[in-house]
């Protein structure tokens, strides 16, 4: 097992609980912009619990692989060097950006990550709505690159925890915009509302973990607009709160598709969500293209009038 100097997630659990209670109180007593639906919140919290069970089951294997890769490291990076922590902060966040982006753009990883997006609410309980199959589909493997470079596995585990704890507070509608300099550099509730929105304008944007600069750099940044409030959930919202359907619906759909047409298995697994051999279904790209066409035609009609 990997010995960590401290576990940010375990340390933050009381903070998570306190902040959820505070957010609910803000909605109940101070009329803040907060909405909780009982079954939705219960589902999100159960998904979070299932995620910790998944982590516990997979922990031994992941630790073993990390320690094995570390045996073949290129450099010896000391865990107590300040520059190593600065470097791991940026590199971890960059890897998070790309892993997160791929989790939206390829269906096999979306099948796991969709769990986090399936609530029609955006509150702190949504932050805890975590996938049950992420570790099984290897969303942790890109970080092996850092371990191979020579960052001790404990550093990676701690920095991953720091990133996850940071991302908790940005799942809220109660906070509007933060100061402009902060919005420019960091991921904020406003940026993350856009990420969770299902409006065509906002699809596939703002993948950042801590630093929003990656989205600005790689062209996936979209600003939240006052004239278009975010609507949360997924393109085709879930039809209920059955926890097993919430956790596995996209996997079931993938198996259904492959069962009907095995020769298109690779497309169904590694194509974008919504991919189909005949193009009859909608992907984010086609939804956005149709939305743009509608906007353009409305603008032309307005000009003609």
């Amino acid at each position, binding site marked *: 097992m990997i010995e960590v100097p401290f576990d940010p997630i375990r340390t933050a659990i009381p903070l998570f609980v306190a902040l959820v209670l505070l957010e609910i109180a803000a*909605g109940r007593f101070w009329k803040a912009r907060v909405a909780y639906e009982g079954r*939705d919140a219960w589902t999100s919290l159960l998904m979070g*619990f299932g995620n910790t069970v998944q982590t516990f089951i997979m922990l031994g294997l992941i630790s073993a692989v990390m320690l094995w890769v570390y045996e073949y490291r290129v450099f010896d990076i000391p865990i107590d060097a300040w520059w190593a922590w600065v470097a791991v902060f940026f590199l971890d966040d960059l890897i998070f950006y790309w892993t997160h982006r791929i989790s939206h753009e390829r269906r096999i990883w979306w099948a796991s990550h969709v769990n986090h997006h399936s609530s*029609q609410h955006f509150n702190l309980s949504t932050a805890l709505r975590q996938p049950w199959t992420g570790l099984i589909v290897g969303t942790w493997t890109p970080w092996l690159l850092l371990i191979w470079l020579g960052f001790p596995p404990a550093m990676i585990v701690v920095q991953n925890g720091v990133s996850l704890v940071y991302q908790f507070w940005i799942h809220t509608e109660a906070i509007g915009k933060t100061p402009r300099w902060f919005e420019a550099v960091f991921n904020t509730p406003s940026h993350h509302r856009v990420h969770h929105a299902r409006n065509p304008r906002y699809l596939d944007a703002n993948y950042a973990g801590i630093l929003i600069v990656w989205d600005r750099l790689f062209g996936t940044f979209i600003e939240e607009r006052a004239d278009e409030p975010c609507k949360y959930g997924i393109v085709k919202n879930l*039809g209920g*709160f059955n926890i097993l359907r919430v956790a596995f619906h996209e996997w079931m*759909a993938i198996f259904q598709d492959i069962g009907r047409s095995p020769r298109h298995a690779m497309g169904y697994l590694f194509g974008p969500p919504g991919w189909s051999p005949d193009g009859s279904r909608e992907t984010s790209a086609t939804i956005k293209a149709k939305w743009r066409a509608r906007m353009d035609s409305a603008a032309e009609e307005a000009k003609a009038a």
Partner: protein
Amino acid sequence: MDQAYIIQFAVSAAAIVLLAAVAAWARIPRKVEPLTEPTARALIAEELPDVRIERVWVDADGAAAVAKAGGEGVVLFRVGDGFAVRTVPWDEVCRARALKGRALFRFGDPAAPACAFKLAGERLPFGEAA
């Protein structure tokens, strides 16, 4: 099992029950009025902007609506304080069975397998538009 994990699981389980209870007690969902024909039309237009709706039927408790759009049926139904939409061939809408005052539509979609439509009378109202 590591004792720290046992404690973490126990504390997490207790916290989940507490938070879910508080969230339910607070009663701060979004306000959702029962569906009417205009609100159902507006919601469907938002979800499926390219679909031309011919006619809409709202169920007896305002929790679901069925729309005819050419050869397609659009089913809008309430999920918590939100809505979900699915499309089915119109023939299937007309063939739906009425049981205990409800019509059940099956979508064959693991994310939303079915939806119940509460009938005002004994018979399905959709057949006449077929």
